[in-house]
């Protein structure tokens, strides 16, 4: 199941509703809903922020995986930008040294099982899986 969304923050409710309908249709555990919403929001908003030159919509594709689902976001007509290679975040910094930002991909990596990036023919594609098996390991 796939759908394209305008590259704006105010479509997030529509993106979440799209994900929820897939969860209901395939009886996927509610425990995975939060991490999938989180990962999709972070990856989607990164695409919006870091590829402003593209006027194309962003595609979100959902597929069943063993004990969970596989999610793929595709950004069209963009230069390569690999968020999986974002620099490490020091989460031990005291409050006075903290600045907002930079946590999204760090947290996404913590919440999903695996995440891969590829770029070809002007398209950036990020795929991740979220499964109950991975969820149970993290819990």
């Amino acid at each position, binding site marked *: 199941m796939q759908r394209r969304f305008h590259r704006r923050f105010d479509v997030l409710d529509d993106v979440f509703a799209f994900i929820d309908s897939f969860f209901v249709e395939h009886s996927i555990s509610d425990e995975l809903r*939060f991490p999938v*919403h989180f990962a999709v929001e972070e990856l989607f908003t990164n695409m919006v922020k870091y590829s402003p030159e593209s006027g194309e919509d962003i595609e979100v594709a959902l597929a069943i995986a063993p004990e969970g689902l596989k999610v793929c976001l595709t950004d069209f007509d963009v230069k390569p930008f690999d968020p999986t290679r974002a620099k490490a975040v020091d989460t*031990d910094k005291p*409050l006075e040294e*903290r*600045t*907002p930002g930079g*946590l999204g991909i760090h*947290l996404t990596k913590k919440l999903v099982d695996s995440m891969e990036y590829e770029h070809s023919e002007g398209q950036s594609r990020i795929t991740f899986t979220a499964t109950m098996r991975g969820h149970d390991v993290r819990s």
Partner: protein
Amino acid sequence: MFEAETIDGGEVRLMGRLDAAQAEKAQAFLDQLTGPTRLDLSGLEYISSAGLGVLLKTQKRLMPVGGVTLTNVNHHIHDIFKYSGFDQIFKIEPASA
């Protein structure tokens, strides 16, 4: 949808979803706080990194006057606080029975 309300002088309740589309609204509300604050998160279903930025900015501003205490945090959001180190920079009270 995100909503916030003041319960009494020092307590504020956040409700709904604090995502990138709602961060500006949440920041505008929290920017009005001027003293030590308990944030009741029992009605907050979801938070993303944009929401964390709002909480961090508020904590930095209010820390000199007593800071922010978080209460009634659901387990998904508690995981987010743990993975981001926010459990070290906020006082988090256990959920009430």
